[in-house]
């Protein structure tokens, strides 16, 4: 039996819907973006969009509308459709409220109230006595517009105030117009018309005929301006010109359409404020655009302010290792129409190299805290000179500096193995010097802008940096030799730390001591035999942490109470295989930690959880942040031979780089693959193998005809997996001797396939029309022919995403040290909404553990909108009958990341109480394994 785990690498990026309003509070202007099963909430600020929260739902967001209870009547269609199950066609709708937000999840809202016709669009009208809906419907004669009043008492539709038969044949949208105009605008392929029962006004501007208008948004509350977006990505403004009559009534005089410019192909539009519009796109990148009063040189009034990457629709993809670092990169065919592009995706963080110097024998990197002016213009040359200069200074003392040079108000502290020196910055004059009384060598040291703590063997000294003087305050002797220490000031201590973190040899412990008295606060035994090499206190998202890296690349991290010095929530992760050095830096005004080792890693916090992210560099021994005019927000990274200066990409994203592309395919060849040096192609219902003749021509070697439509092909050795349009998957074997195909086995479930993949010799992965993944298994040991011919469906998982492509490979570095990833193999998949996920195999015990965990988590996690997790898979259209479900769910596992500690503990306790003793006692294994899994999921 095969057990598989499905996990998300990149959440859906395609935007389905967006809405603006005051949601998080009455003062905040919010932008809410729906990305299939996820909802992102932003605050609109003067600087741009600031993310507030991201929530996942157990359902697809189909429609999203902001409303304030009792104020707005737009809630009614949903209520009606739920209540009137008998007269309104029933669709699986989940109605849910998040604060003031009403969400409708499920299939399209399509009513069949008293009409044997298709409803194209429905909206509530403004300014009517009773709630009134206006809708476009289609019958055999054409499209018509009708209004119905909603009788809340009888829960019925009654005839409305007006109707308009035979509107444009392609009329697709109703826009309700607020008072004073009232009525509705009907958008068609060629014309835009206004109706309100009395008045009828139509325009047919030639510009809109070119493409189809797909979305609209009201700009002004009085409804005098609307934004329209079409399939070519053009943005229009629809203006309603008003006229005041003699009796004071305001009526519509005319309609105007103006082309504003080009954006991404919009799926939804929302006007934020001050001429800023969010363009949500499903086929390309979403954008934040500014509408200018004057046009630019190209005649466009639109200026793009910000672009939000969207990978969807991922039509095809493959894994390559371009940089030959053992780390796969994914190349996707993303976007559609004019938005088509090839994108390269890599796990981890990209460093853009700006400059590098070959400088053999670098022992450390120094930090220049350039004051307001002093070294802000440091160039590469200057910098290298400085580096050399430091080396020179060092030379005179015949000792190497301990790489800690702190510059503050024109004075710097230089710590070498023999002394701590206070030096003025400009003249390089020595102001003050401290030496160990017996002249012993300093082994390790740490300093901040006011304090220095250093260790000489087992003795710790605490110095204060005063103006023009270094003053020893206290000293103490530890039980063992000091391996590393840190006095980074945390909290609001204003540059002074009251705690000193120390890592010791021999007993391999991390300790926290109070400054200045060195009284012990906390002792944490790390276990094992590898000494701590770097210790660091840091603050992520308001939480304090202690990080301690060992000589073998392992990292312990703890929650830290800076008042009491107590450590909690011990966790361990493996970053590399070599001694690791930890350094802090800031990027986009958040603090991050750079772990220098053979596998450089950036540590940052997301949703109050630490994330460990690979960097696209081979080896980094030392790193220090650099912020100068020439290199703003940069990092200086050094290994044995090179110093590199680079900037870091925006963290917390798969690294995505866009190149170009366009491709053209002709004919009804649905799939082609290379197969044993020959060409395998599927042509309608035929699977055909071509071989090359001596004349370099393709000649048919053999055919297989028993399909309805062979859409997808995958091969492994002599085996071919065929994905049929509607008959699931078929396994063929190629017989090289006979030059023929043999049908080995078939899955007889009527699955409408969208992608297939061979997991291993016996297991086959498929994705189908109803957003499910399934695994089929070949039963070679079966006793009867008939059983052997059947691929057994052994696993089913509702993904909620339409998978277009599977590809073997992984974005994570393989063989990450001693980390015990409890999974085997990995298949990546790409979806229509730009999601990238991973399917990997687990052992049975892991599977049952995770499944158990998932079930228990579901009891702890409150789902947004109270849509039950169990409902989610059943929302699939497909009839599923008692299949064993051996694909574990990802939805809840990702939730563990965002759980509070207590909730996590609760889930864990629940799990422990029901697990085997064996599994429960192996707590560490569980945590490490899970964190590895989650690490994968990053």
């Amino acid at each position, binding site marked *: 039996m095969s057990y598989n785990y499905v996990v998300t690498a990149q959440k859906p990026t395609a935007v389905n819907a967006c809405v603006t309003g005051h949601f998080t509070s009455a003062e905040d202007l919010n932008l809410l973006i729906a990305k299939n099963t996820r909802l992102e909430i932003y605050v609109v600020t003067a600087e741009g969009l600031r993310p507030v929260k991201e929530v996942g739902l157990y359902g697809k967001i189909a429609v999203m509308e902001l409303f304030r209870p009792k104020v707005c009547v737009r809630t009614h269609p949903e209520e009606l459709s739920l209540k009137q199950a008998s007269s309104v066609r029933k669709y699986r709708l989940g109605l849910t409220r998040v604060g003031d937000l009403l969400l409708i999840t499920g299939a399209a809202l399509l009513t069949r109230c008293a009409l044997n016709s298709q409803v194209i669009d429905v909206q509530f009208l403004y300014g009517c006595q009773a709630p009134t809906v206006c809708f476009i419907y289609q019958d055999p004669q054409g499209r018509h517009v009708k209004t119905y009043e909603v009788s809340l008492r009888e829960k019925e539709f009654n005839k409305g105030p007006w109707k308009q038969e035979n509107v444009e044949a392609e009329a697709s949208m109703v826009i309700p117009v607020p008072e004073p105009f009232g009525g509705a605008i009907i958008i068609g392929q060629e014309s835009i018309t206004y109706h309100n029962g009395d008045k009828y006004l139509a325009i047919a501007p030639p510009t809109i005929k070119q493409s189809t208008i797909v979305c609209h948004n009201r700009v002004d509350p009085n409804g005098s301006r609307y934004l329209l977006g079409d399939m070519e990505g053009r943005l229009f403004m629809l203006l309603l010109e008003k006229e005041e009559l003699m009796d004071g009534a305001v009526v519509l005089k005319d309609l105007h359409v103006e082309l504003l410019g080009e954006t991404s192909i919009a799926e939804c539009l929302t006007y934020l404020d001050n001429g800023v519009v969010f363009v949500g796109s499903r086929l390309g990148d979403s954008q934040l655009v500014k509408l200018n009063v004057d046009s630019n040189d190209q005649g466009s009034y639109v200026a793009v302010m910000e672009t939000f990457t969207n990978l969807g629709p991922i039509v095809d993809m493959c894994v390559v290792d371009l940089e030959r670092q053992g780390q796969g990169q994914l190349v996707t065919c993303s976007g559609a129409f004019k938005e088509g592009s090839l994108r390269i995706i890599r796990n981890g963080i990209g460093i853009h190299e700006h400059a590098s110097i070959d400088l053999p024998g670098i022992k450390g990197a120094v930090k220049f805290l350039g004051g307001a002016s002093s070294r802000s213009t440091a160039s590469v040359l200057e910098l290298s000179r400085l580096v050399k200069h430091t080396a020179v200074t060092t030379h005179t003392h015949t000792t190497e500096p301990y790489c800690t040079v702190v510059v503050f108000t024109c004075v710097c502290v230089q710590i070498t193995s023999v002394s701590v020196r206070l030096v003025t910055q400009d003249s390089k004059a020595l102001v003050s010097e401290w030496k160990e009384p017996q002249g012993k060598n300093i082994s390790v040291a740490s300093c901040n802008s006011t304090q220095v703590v250093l260790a000489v063997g087992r003795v710790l000294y605490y110095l204060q940096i005063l103006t023009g003087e270094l003053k020893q305050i206290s000293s103490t002797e530890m039980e063992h030799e000091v391996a590393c220490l840190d006095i980074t000031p945390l909290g609001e201590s204003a540059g002074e730390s009251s705690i000193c973190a120390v890592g010791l040899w021999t007993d391999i412990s991390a300790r926290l001591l109070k400054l200045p008295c060195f009284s012990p606060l906390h002792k944490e035994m790390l276990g094992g035999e590898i000494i701590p090499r770097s210790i660091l206190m840091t603050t992520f998202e308001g939480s304090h942490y202690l990080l301690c890296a060992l000589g073998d690349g392992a990292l312990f991290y703890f929650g830290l109470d800076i008042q009491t010095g107590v450590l909690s929530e011990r966790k361990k992760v493996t970053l590399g295989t070599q001694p690791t050095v930890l350094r802090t830096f800031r990027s986009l005004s958040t603090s991050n930690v750079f772990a220098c080792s053979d596998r450089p890693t950036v540590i940052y916090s997301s949703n109050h959880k630490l994330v460990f992210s690979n960097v696209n560099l081979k080896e980094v021994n030392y790193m220090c942040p650099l912020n100068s005019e020439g290199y703003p927000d940069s990092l200086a990274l050094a290994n044995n031979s090179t110093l590199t200066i680079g900037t870091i990409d925006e963290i917390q994203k798969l690294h995505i780089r866009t190149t170009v592309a366009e491709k053209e395919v002709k004919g009804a060849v649905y799939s082609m693959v290379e197969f044993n040096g020959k*060409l395998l192609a599927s042509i309608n219902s035929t699977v055909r193998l071509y071989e090359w003749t001596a004349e370099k021509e393709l000649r048919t070697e053999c*055919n297989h005809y028993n399909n309805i439509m062979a859409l997808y092909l995958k091969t492994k050795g002599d085996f071919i997996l065929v994905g049929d349009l*509607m008959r699931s998957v078929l396994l063929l074997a190629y017989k090289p001797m006979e030059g023929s195909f043999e049908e080995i086995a078939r899955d007889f479930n009527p699955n409408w396939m969208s992608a297939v993949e061979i997991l291993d010799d016996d297991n086959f992965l498929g994705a189908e029309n109803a957003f499910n993944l399934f695994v089929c298994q070949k039963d070679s040991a079966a006793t009867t022919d008939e059983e052997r011919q059947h691929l057994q469906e052994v696993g089913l998982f509702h993904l909620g995403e339409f998978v277009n492509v599977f590809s073997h490979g992984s974005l994570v570095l393989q063989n990450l040290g001693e980390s015990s990833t409890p999974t085997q193999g990995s298949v990546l998949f790409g979806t229509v909404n730009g999601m990238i996920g991973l399917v990997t195999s687990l052992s049975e015990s892991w599977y049952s553990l995770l499944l158990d965990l998932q079930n228990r988590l579901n009891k702890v996690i409150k789902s947004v909108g109270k849509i039950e997790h169990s409902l989610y898979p059943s929302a699939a259209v497909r*009839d599923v009958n008692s299949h064993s479900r051996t694909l574990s769910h990802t939805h809840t596992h990702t939730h563990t990341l965002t759980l509070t500690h207590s909730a996590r503990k609760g889930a864990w306790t629940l799990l422990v109480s029901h697990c085997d003793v064996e599994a429960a006692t192996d707590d560490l294994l569980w945590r490490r394994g899970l964190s590895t899994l989650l690490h994968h999921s990053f």
Partner: protein
Amino acid sequence: MLSFLYARQSGLDDPVRLRRAESTRRVLSLELNHNRDVDRIHGNGINTLDIEVIDGRYMLSGGSDGVIVIYDLENNSKKPQYTCKAICTVGRSSRHVHKFSVETVQWYPHDTGMFVSSSFDKTLKVWDTETLKPAEEFQFDGNVYCHHMSPIARKHSLVAVGTKDPKEQLCDLKSGSRIHILQGHRGEILSVRWSPRYEHILATASTDSRVRVWDVRRASGSLFTLDQHNGDKSKASSEAVNTAHNGRVNGLCFTADGLHLLTTGTDDRMRLWNSATGENTLVNYGKVVNESRKGLRFTVSRGCSPEFVFVPCGSSVAVYGLHSGELITMLRGHYNNVDCCEFHPDYQELYSGGKDCNVLAWVPVLRQPDIEDDETNSKRGEAQATINPAFEDAWSSDED
């Protein structure tokens, strides 16, 4: 097709659209196909067919000679051509066989381990599929014309039985007893169907020209009676008030979504009703010849857009647009009257049984497989050596 596939993979269309469009195309291309045969077992007319919904693999048939056959519809031949094998039979030699004509057979909707048959021998038998022996037998006073089990019911396991007696009977499979009678009809009950939408809603059709819709939880009579004139009394003669047809009503069929109900009558009409209100939708199917003295087993498509109705009509099966009423095609192939037909929703195939003792499989025409004629290909290759045959094939298949 390519445009549908492209729209599906770029997310322009809901994936269901491709599925509906392709299903519709397939239904429109149904034909008697040389690739598919069904074993000929029955020595007499075939009255009833049923395909189970769990795997969509096994089909039951019941014949006028009392014989019941189970077919395996799955293609295990590894070739496109195959014959649906009869895997077991309750033949004349079995001591459990129905004495007279089997009028209805139906799989137990939740498990293929059981099926139910009813016959003119005044019995309804519940069979164990493994042993082919009745696990339960219900005796009635008159011929059993029809029975039906709810395809969706989870709260009850009632079999609704229509017999010569105007009282509709409900048999409970759990207790093995006849637990309920629904009174209202004044003639024989020729057809009975549970709603596929609400598990307590039942429709019955009778020779008294009426169709009644019941909620079996209610003791007091039917919910409503279908009225062909929608309550307009001026159009109906006094005795025809509240009638569904001007003749015997012998066929009933809910649409797959349960929103509509189709009825057929010996007035040669077929009518489509709103199943929630009982309103006649007045879709005009024209003359649907119907001379059956017994129940007529017709069916609707599932998963297409628009949907279709398949009605036995003389020796052919007529295909109508469900909502348009348009006669799309007549499937001709039987040598005698067709009595029943059954749609396979997974593969858009239709099976029909008739008095000619045949079960015919109507299969969608495949998009032309790219079959090469080696000889012509090689000749062409010689003639046009400059053209790469690979491109040539791709082009020709596209045009096909």
